[in-house]
């Protein structure tokens, strides 16, 4: 008991010293695995084949939205950004990024939203709505196969630390942190479902349980409800910080958007 208390005190001290980076990243690089590897062979096949991956329907929908002129400005995404296959390649892999104007971290959905309201002068899209997800899926799909580079921006260091702290903080009536499952017990079962390592490689994902596309924030909300904690609101800075930490933790892994998950 006293040894555990000592350990807890030690961890607290380390956090205070800002050494959390060393402790939080407990999964060795060689052992990192995408959620894809934890799925059944059938679900893997479903993701691999663009013809059977239901997320591709949303990507197609996003491609259409990309070309649609909207808002008072009468501009489409393509009018400024051109061919997404060129201009958006690798973009989702480096998000959440830094928004210089507001001096905060901004996630991909937030950036699309911002572009839409300021440059297209159009009403914002509902955060987890079909159109917002379709556009995010289309943009992120352009980075498929590219390595995740998010979190490299030094201006995001503070947000990254916040995300890391949130990841390690115990929450909810079950008093569990993200790390309790995804760092300490990955590969084990929770009920009948394997616990993955929480690398956000395929977002927005088509989740079979949802029978629809959903964002990383929706997935995190799901986990928070699971540990009986109160979730943050969609687009909350805490969510962005967590997203940033998870993406940087998965740094170098390949993007899979649109992923299929059970």
């Amino acid at each position: 008991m006293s040894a555990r208390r000592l350990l807890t005190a030690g961890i607290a001290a380390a956090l205070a010293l800002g050494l959390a980076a060393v402790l939080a990243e407990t999964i060795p690089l060689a052992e990192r695995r995408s959620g894809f590897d934890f799925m059944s062979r059938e679900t893997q096949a479903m993701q691999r084949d663009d013809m059977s991956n239901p997320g591709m329907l949303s990507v197609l929908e996003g491609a259409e939205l990309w070309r649609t002129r909207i808002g008072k400005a009468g501009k489409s995404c393509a009018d400024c950004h051109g061919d997404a296959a060129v201009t958006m390649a690798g973009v989702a892999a480096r998000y959440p990024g830094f928004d210089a104007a507001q001096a905060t971290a901004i996630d991909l959905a937030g950036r699309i939203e911002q572009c839409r309201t300021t440059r297209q002068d159009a009403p914002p899209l509902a955060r987890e709505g079909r159109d917002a997800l379709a556009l995010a899926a289309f943009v992120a799909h352009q980075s498929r196969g590219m390595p995740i580079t998010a979190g490299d921006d030094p201006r995001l260091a503070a947000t990254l630390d916040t995300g890391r702290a949130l990841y390690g903080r115990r929450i909810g009536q079950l008093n569990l942190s993200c790390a309790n499952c995804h760092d300490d017990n990955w590969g084990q079962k929770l009920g009948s479902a394997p616990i993955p390592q929480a690398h956000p490689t395929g977002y927005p994902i088509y989740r079979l349980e949802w029978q629809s596309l959903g964002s990383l924030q929706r997935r995190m909300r799901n986990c928070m409800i699971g540990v009986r904690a109160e979730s943050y609101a969609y687009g909350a800075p805490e969510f962005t910080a967590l997203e940033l930490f998870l993406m940087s933790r998965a740094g170098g892994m390949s993007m899979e958007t649109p992923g299929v998950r059970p």
Partner: protein
Amino acid sequence: MARALINLPATAKRGDIIEIRTLVQHPMETGFRPLPNGSLVPRHIINRFECIYDGATIFAAELHPAIAANPFIAFKTIATRSGELLFRWTEDTGEVREERATITVT
């Protein structure tokens, strides 16, 4: 009804067995799912799928409420002659969505 994805070989030899795969976007709402206020989400499903090739219905399926959203249907047929394949999904409401694809048979 929204988008559909159809995959079949663009060309085939006469007599070849070809695989046709279709994925259609549809909520397949069962009619059993309650909303927070206790009322049910109205049933909204595709109840029939057909594929017509060379004037004949080569494949048909009846769909029921327990089928997941965005139904994926794959089947095989024999390539007989060049032409158009018609894919038809029919909803409960009678609304029909049709897609066409062509194949060249040599």
